[in-house]
């Protein structure tokens, strides 16, 4: 699937790092770009729809395990969207870390605590009075800004971007369009210190979790006290 959008014969791309790359494009046959676009559109619509459906279902379900499963659906669909955006490593990391590790932890806790349906007490008044209008305003604001800056039309991005992507890939010498090499270059050279600090952070988190979840001696858990009801 090496189809590209309709593009000029050659394109010069100015990268954010200050480098500039010139790339000569081979003329592609006219039918080819349509396929890629159509496929992209179909995949986007399916998985964006799944994302939204999952997120809404997360709110509607009253049992935590159903909410957890909806969240897994959201995360997996996001992984596909990452693939569409050319971030294949992140897509898989999303599946392994989020859907495969973090959410397993959630499901595990729900199973362990045997948490039942939630009570419909409908929350505090502050959340209703200020929270929901604030969310609506936030959403409207974000949407306006996005549409203002990015524009809704496809013409603005489309062709130029796809060509630019080709140029960058050719410049990097990556034939199989893997961004893994670039990613690791930045991660392990420029951002090595933050990376190492993260590992310390995770170690501390593990220790904290162990300390918090450990049962202390002679501390009768409330679960057993109220188990009879």
């Amino acid at each position: 699937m090496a189809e590209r959008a309709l593009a000029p014969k050659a394109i010069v791309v100015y990268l954010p790092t200050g480098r500039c790359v010139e790339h000569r494009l081979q003329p592609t046959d006219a039918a080819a770009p349509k396929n890629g676009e159509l496929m992209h559109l179909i995949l986007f619509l399916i998985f964006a729809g799944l994302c939204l459906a999952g997120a809404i279902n997360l709110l509607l379900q009253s049992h935590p395990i159903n909410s957890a499963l909806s969240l897994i659906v959201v995360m997996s669909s996001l992984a596909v969207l990452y693939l569409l955006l050319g971030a294949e490593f992140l897509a898989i990391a999303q599946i392994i870390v989020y859907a495969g590790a973090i959410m397993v932890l959630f499901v595990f806790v729900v199973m362990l605590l045997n948490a039942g349906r939630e009570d419909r007490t409908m929350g505090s008044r502050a959340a209703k009075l200020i929270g929901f209008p604030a969310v609506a305003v936030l959403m409207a604001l974000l949407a306006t800004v996005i549409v203002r800056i990015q524009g809704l039309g496809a013409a603005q991005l489309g062709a130029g971007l796809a060509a630019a992507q080709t140029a960058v890939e050719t410049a990097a010498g990556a034939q199989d369009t893997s961004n893994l090499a670039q990613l690791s270059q930045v991660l392990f050279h420029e951002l090595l210190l933050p990376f190492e600090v993260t590992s310390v952070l995770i170690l501390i988190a593990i220790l904290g979790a162990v300390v918090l979840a450990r049962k202390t001696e002679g501390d009768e858990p409330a679960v057993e006290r109220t188990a009879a009801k």
Partner: protein
Amino acid sequence: MTLLQFFLWSVVKVAVVTVILLMGVAYTVLLERKLVGRIQNRWGPSRVGPFGMLQPLVDGAKNFLKEDLIPTAVYRPLYLLAPIISLTCALVSIAVIPFGEPNAGPHGLDLFEISNINVGLLVILGITSIGVYGVALAGWSSNNKYSLLGSLRSSAQLISYELALGLSLVGIVLRAGSLNLRVIVEQQAEKGIATWNIFGGLQFIAFFIYLTAAYAETNRSPFDLPEAESELTGGYHTEYSSMKFAMFFMAEYANMITVGCVATLLFLGGWTSPWGNLLGPVENNLVNALLSIFWFVAKVFCFLFLYVWVRGTLPRFRYDQLMNFGWRYLMPLAILNIVGTSLWLAYR
């Protein structure tokens, strides 16, 4: 190639591979019953067809015709969903596995792999990590204490051993410099057995870790605690019957085959012959293709044989032993292997 052609060809490839995989599953079950029978000094299935070869078909028919019981206290949606998740995850990961030489079919299609992905290895790990949900939800939704205990054990076991499994593969990726399974195999093909990762690549420790972790990941003996029948009456699939039970069963064996395929690709040179490129390729394209398939299947068969052999020989671990082994021995060993491999690669 138009989108429609691409789509149709993909559907055909998926259908063929799935059918072959399911046949493989059926005959792996037969292989296991036969071999375990011989290990225990009895015949194993021998009545249906010559040498009992038709036994899998009869087994399938039996499972299909059994009454499908759904206990009243189960949480229905998840109870029905769990076996589907299990089987789907087991079947999907075969999609990124290359079975033979890159072979240009019509329209430049790769006939021996459903899809060639540049992060293929990670895709397999990702799908494996999703498979946990099948087991976890089955146990929880069954509303049975044995099921719940089995699934809790199993989730903990799968998460623990997934770490060792992933870390054991880092050495391979360091050597190959790619996550593409085809690149990893081709890099081992040069001098045949001498450049296979397990020997020439000095990854035998990684192979041992992978083997152990894979047994735990597929819930196979000696790590079959989630379904330990002597203490949990069957673990997470206690409450399942008929086809739903069969789906868990098929998922387990499909996982075995996938794990065998991955071991073959990563450690044993994939579809390349033991003498690799030393003798030069055979002229005939068809013979070449068939030979590559033959080597691949033979290697996977050896792996499955080992699986059954281990099952017939080793006793089951205790639960605390299992956790200790995973975290205290396998994990540090895998990390040491990564350090050793990178030092070797740097100062070679």
